[in-house]
């Protein structure tokens, strides 16, 4: 299990909401849960001015940044036009009600594995 690191149970994520994964020294990760129980993870930094996306309003498969209301696609991490910019998306997997991130716990940065972004 070195590719995937457990973070929480699915029911510990609020529906249409997010939680923050604290990664000291490596930048926080925002983990989102949609109304249809899809889970996405992005670096917790809006490409605009670095706002914490984890604090935004989640709708459809997007989140609105709490600072200046940029809308970010949860799957790609890219801003919805006409805004431009992307935040790194992070592989995430839900297995038997447990959420795993595609990062290694022992190697903080830059330890994001290059695997498909699908869940």
């Amino acid at each position, binding site marked *: 299990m070195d590719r995937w690191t457990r973070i929480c149970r699915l029911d510990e994520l609020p529906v249409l909401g997010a939680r923050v994964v604290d*990664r000291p020294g490596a930048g926080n990760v925002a983990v989102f849960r949609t109304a249809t129980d899809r889970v996405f993870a992005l670096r917790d930094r809006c490409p605009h001015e670095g706002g*914490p996306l984890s604090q935004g309003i989640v709708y*459809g498969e997007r989140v*609105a940044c709490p600072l200046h209301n940029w809308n970010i696609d949860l799957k790609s991490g890219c801003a919805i036009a006409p805004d431009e910019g992307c935040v790194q998306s992070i592989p995430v997997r839900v297995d038997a009600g447990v959420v795993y991130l595609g990062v290694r716990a022992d190697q903080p940065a830059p330890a994001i594995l290059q695997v498909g972004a699908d869940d």
Partner: protein
Amino acid sequence: MKLVMVGNGMAGARTLEELIKLAPDLYDITVFGAEPYANYNRILLSPVLAGEQTIGDIMLNGVDWYAEHGIKLRLGSQVTRIERKRRRIETANGIVAGYDRLLLATGSNPVILPVPGHELPGVITYRDIHDTHTMIEAAATHRDAVVIGGGLLGLEAANGLKLRGMNVTVVHLADWLMERQLDRVAGNLLQKSLEDRGLAFRIKAQTKELIGAPSAENGRVCAVRIVDSDGIEETLPADLVVMAAGIRPNTALAESAGLHCSRGIVVDDTLQTFDPRIYAIGECVNHRGVAYGLVAPLFEMAKVCANHLALHGIGRYTGSVTATKLKVTGIDLFSAGAFTGGPECEEIVLSDPFGGVYKKLVIKDDKLVGGVLYGDTVDGSWYFKLLREGRNVSDIRDRLMFGEANLGDTGHQGQNRAMTMAPSDEVCGCNGVCKETIVKAIKEKGLFTLDDVRKHTKASSSCGSCTGLVEQLLMATAGGDYSAAPKMKAVCGCTDYTHQQVRDAIRDQHLLTIPAAMRFLEWRTPNGCATCRPALNYYLISTWPHEAKDDPQSRFINERAHANIQKDGTFSVVPRIWGGETNSSELRRIADVVDKYQIRTVKVTGGQRIDLLGVKKQDLPAVWHDLGMPSGHAYAKALRTVKTCVGSEWCRFGTQDSTQMGKDLERALWRMYAPHKVKLAVSGCPRNCAESGIKDVGVIGVDSGWEIYVAGNGGIKTEVAQFLVRVKTGAEVLEYAGAFLQLYREEGWYLERTVHYVARVGLDHVKKVVVDDAAARRALYERLQFALDGEPDPWHEPDRAGIDRRQYVPLALLPA
């Protein structure tokens, strides 16, 4: 499914744009255009003719736009036949195409006067790029031009030809120029300033005949014979004759297919013709008896039509109020609505013929119904907005003529004339957007509406105080008739319903949850967006207190976390200090919290409280606990503060105990959510040290009791509160203030401050309910008390307040 569009003008292309947004893959689309060009901005042909822009400048969607969206574009192909039974069309060059849906956007044709000689070479109309080129060429090789028709189009053509060096005479049949848009005074002013530019006019003159040169010179037109109202004939030299005597909906194709036409292709409110597979849009249609020739209504139609083509089936086009602006550089002219007045209308007129300024505003039943501006049109967009919204103007009637700037502004140095600003001048102070950026975006990206500009440049998307400026830039850059937004604005892109319609549905249908409201109102998106969800949540809990359940995930982060998010992602904490009066033990606890949690900045707020800035989210619950003070709701659309002066307890001038009154008000009203933030103040005497004059509710102590003022605002636009009532006792202050705020809570639109709410419904309405009707006032106050009863303090009763406390605990990477 196959969609065929006939006509590739602005209305049609706009419909496709809207359709692609809604249902990108629903149709296999083919477009037939008779002109050899992709979609261009027909309205800007006049600046092209005048040499101020080029054809390249006015293209809206190039050929590559069609390719990019998989749309087959057949240019230079005139559709000549529709076979409705076999559902296919045929073009002059032999193309046959089948359709499941057909969209007719055939536009209009210029009226050609049937006078002798109308078919001579050198006699043209003014409609498309080809005509514009013909005029530009003629101006280079010929000398005399006659324009028949002194309407909008004719005058723009005349001006362009004059600028290109021709001698131009305008022949006009009616009593004054642009008689459909201007009254006589403005028409005469316009004629004078055009004459100053060297144009000649023959008013009330009829065209009898166009005379051709001998055939040795190719038989080109060489003169126009006219007759004036006294029957005197005159012959004007003319190497070029431009017929601009009006337009007529182009219905030939539709009529030949047996579709019902009557001064346009007759459509219903969904833009459907009498054949349900066929839609029609733009200048070719007759909607409720009106054929529109301006672009703003066409865009409104496009939105509705696209929605129905996309099978969403929402939205009706119910007609448009239109405004006109002449696109002749240096002449400022604007007209809208019922500018001629009539019975039961009142007119306000400002006339300075020597200064070249004339303004007429027509008012009926306290509402602006029309207006003409000449020479100074900066407030055109503002008047037009008042007109469309049907806002009651009785409260600003005395200042109405002097424009929006007269009502006060902050944030852009009092700038109010977009035209006189330098390109590098800042328009939007919130987002740092300068004039140049906005103008460039409008031109390059083909923006038409305020919303477009907001999305692309962010200008006017934050505080909105520069909205008027941006609308002026839109008008000036894109052409006058663009600025017109729909009369009623939808809540957001997820729905076509307005805030009022949503509020009404929630009340009438007893809707209790966001999903139920979205289902009933047929929301287009599965769970809304960051704009509509907070609004719906507020409407539900304010309409059905103790019944509808608050949804924290539909609240903005500040109201979800109960603290204010800062630019670095930390939060600020403002404890409640009743009436701004504190004591040593509170201050000591605050000091201890600051030390313990290493809070970087401690600041006194404008609302007589203390702000602790830079608190980490995970520390918030502990900070609240250690403070031991109630939530100040400084983060919420709710009652914020009640600012007070020291009052009669200490002040040698004080007449009333304003501090106690303020504390009583704050204790009665705290935890009250509202459409927007609510600020109160209580002053102990008319010196008004608590600044009650710029608060949502301002109370001023006088010798005999208290005066209550409402709907003031110290923000973007400083607005002085209006006098509501004078009362004797503190208990009355509570009841009147509470009743007013409950009325605002029940009727206000989300994010509408009291000043805008009262401007919308009128102070008379508020007085009628809150002052004149004691029973209604008591009922309002009781409903407010019912709503607030048992409302928890989120800082100290988080579970009762429904807070998801997991948000304060970050997750960690767990060992496998």
